[in-house]
């Protein structure tokens, strides 16, 4: 059996999920075919690359898949590697994918639902990245990414932003019938009518607006739950840092064009994300019959280093996350039995 690149199936908390660590991409952990209670939710999810601009405007790394601008691919580490200077190549490099990935089945307790958690850590220059995907028994998916390792050795006091890009290919209740993507705005407190969902009619870049509680949804065009509501999953994207000249959007709505293409390659020729808008999220959508929607999204963290204090020895793992939340996907009866 190949050391990397195979699909490994795990199941817990009402979920069946496959995970995979490819070699050639350098894009880290991928999750595939995530099914909840017997229904397909996700074809594939990954956090293939990050853009990391520093104050002073140099450097601006593109890390992960198709690394550029001084950035580095994500190299799988043994999961036991300490949060320190890792030797990869060397004793800390995972020699097989199962050395890197940890699957944890977390039972429900008095405060939280049961969770299936798939995690792996990667070397990237002096940094370590952790990719972690949580699948909860209430149907929620929480992709998480952490930064650890060490500060830039010659810019240890220089602040920078981690723009971490996720590619999410939702297939709500299967690849067919097709899905549409909608954007939500809380416009005012009118009742009814203060909140509004709008179908997105063309591929393109979307901007967040926390003042409007903005979120996005991928929903099926045909498939409904027992109450007659379209099945869907929402994207709730917290904002702890803003857009800038390197990372110009929050969500990009595009379509599936293959699994060996448009995974983050060809992005970053100027150390920016402009190609997501010009090359990827470009073309019409079909609101009536739906499309095979693929979303790109950014999770951000502005890192003001504590280089003379808490981060002098190493960076404690700092996690950022977002949520992919079911709406009308689960029937009320099934939901009450979780």
């Amino acid at each position, binding site marked *: 059996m190949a050391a990397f690149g195979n699909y490994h199936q795990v199941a817990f908390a009402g979920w069946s999920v496959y995970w995979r660590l490819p070699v*050639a991409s350098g894009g880290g952990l991928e999750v595939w*075919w995530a099914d909840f209670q017997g229904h397909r939710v996700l074809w594939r999810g990954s956090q293939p690359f990050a853009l990391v601009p520093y104050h002073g405007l140099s450097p601006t790394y593109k890390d992960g898949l198709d690394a550029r601008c001084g950035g*580095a691919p994500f190299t799988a580490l043994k999961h036991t590697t300490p949060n320190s200077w890792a030797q990869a190549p060397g004793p800390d490099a995972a020699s097989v994918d199962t050395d890197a990935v940890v699957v944890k089945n977390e039972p429900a307790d008095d405060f939280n639902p049961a969770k299936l958690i798939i995690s792996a850590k990667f070397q990237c220059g*002096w940094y370590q990245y952790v990719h972690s995907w949580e699948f909860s028994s209430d149907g929620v998916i929480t992709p998480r990414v952490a930064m650890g390792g060490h500060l830039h050795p*010659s810019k240890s006091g220089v602040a920078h932003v981690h723009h971490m890009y996720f590619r999410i290919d939702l297939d709500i209740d299967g690849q067919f019938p097709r899905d549409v993507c909608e954007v939500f705005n809380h416009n005012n407190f009118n009742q009814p009518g203060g909140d509004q969902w709008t179908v997105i009619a063309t591929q393109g870049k979307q901007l967040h607006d926390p003042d409007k509680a903005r979120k996005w949804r991928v929903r099926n065009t045909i498939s409904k739950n027992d109450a007659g509501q379209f099945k869907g999953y929402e994207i709730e994207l917290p904002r702890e840092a803003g857009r800038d000249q390197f990372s110009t959007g929050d969500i990009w709505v595009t379509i599936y064009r293959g699994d060996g293409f448009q995974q983050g390659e060809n992005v970053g020729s100027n150390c920016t994300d402009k190609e997501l808008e010009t090359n990827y999220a470009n073309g019409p959508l079909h609101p009536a019959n739906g499309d095979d929607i693929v979303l790109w999204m950014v999770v951000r963290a502005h890192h003001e280093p504590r280089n003379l204090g808490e981060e002098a020895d190493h960076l404690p793992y700092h996690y950022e996350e977002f949520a992919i939340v079911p709406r009308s996907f689960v029937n009320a009866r*099934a939901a009450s039995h979780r």
Partner: protein
Amino acid sequence: MLVPMSDATKKMIPAIAPLKKKEERLAVEVAQRHLKGELSERYRIFPPELRIVKPGRQGAQVQRSIAVLVVDYGKGSTTEVLIDSRGKVLRSGVVEGFEPAFLIEEILEARHIAGGEPRVAKLVKGKRVFVSPFSPRHEAAQGRRQIGLHYVAARGRYGASLLADVVVDIAEGKLVQFEESPAPVERES
């Protein structure tokens, strides 16, 4: 009890089963045969990986295919050969605008080449050194296969200092860039 796996995934199980050694060998042989005469003298074949693509129409089965990447050092290009489970070539072409991640073997080779450079050897002598790869590429085109290496030395109880950034051209087998970092300014105690 609710079964978590969907019917769609159950139908895919044979197509997504782990790649067998026999399949790997066959895929490499087929790719090499297919590219015979097109490759330069120096190339590297990446470990074959399964490639599962969504079916184009409702009711169609997911097909098992195997992708073989060949990085041609001499030409500065990467070719992907996509092969079905019986060894038939489905598609082949140069991959534009994507550079595959460095393999461990390539990083070790780059370190070996850099280590033979007297300036690097002198710099790291007697120090506890951490070496990590980076991509020096900025432009969209792939170009020559070059591996950057950061040399970092531990300094004192905490912290570290960047000694140098070097770039190794794998095709040429030589160091093409050496940038020594200025000595760090010691903090006032």
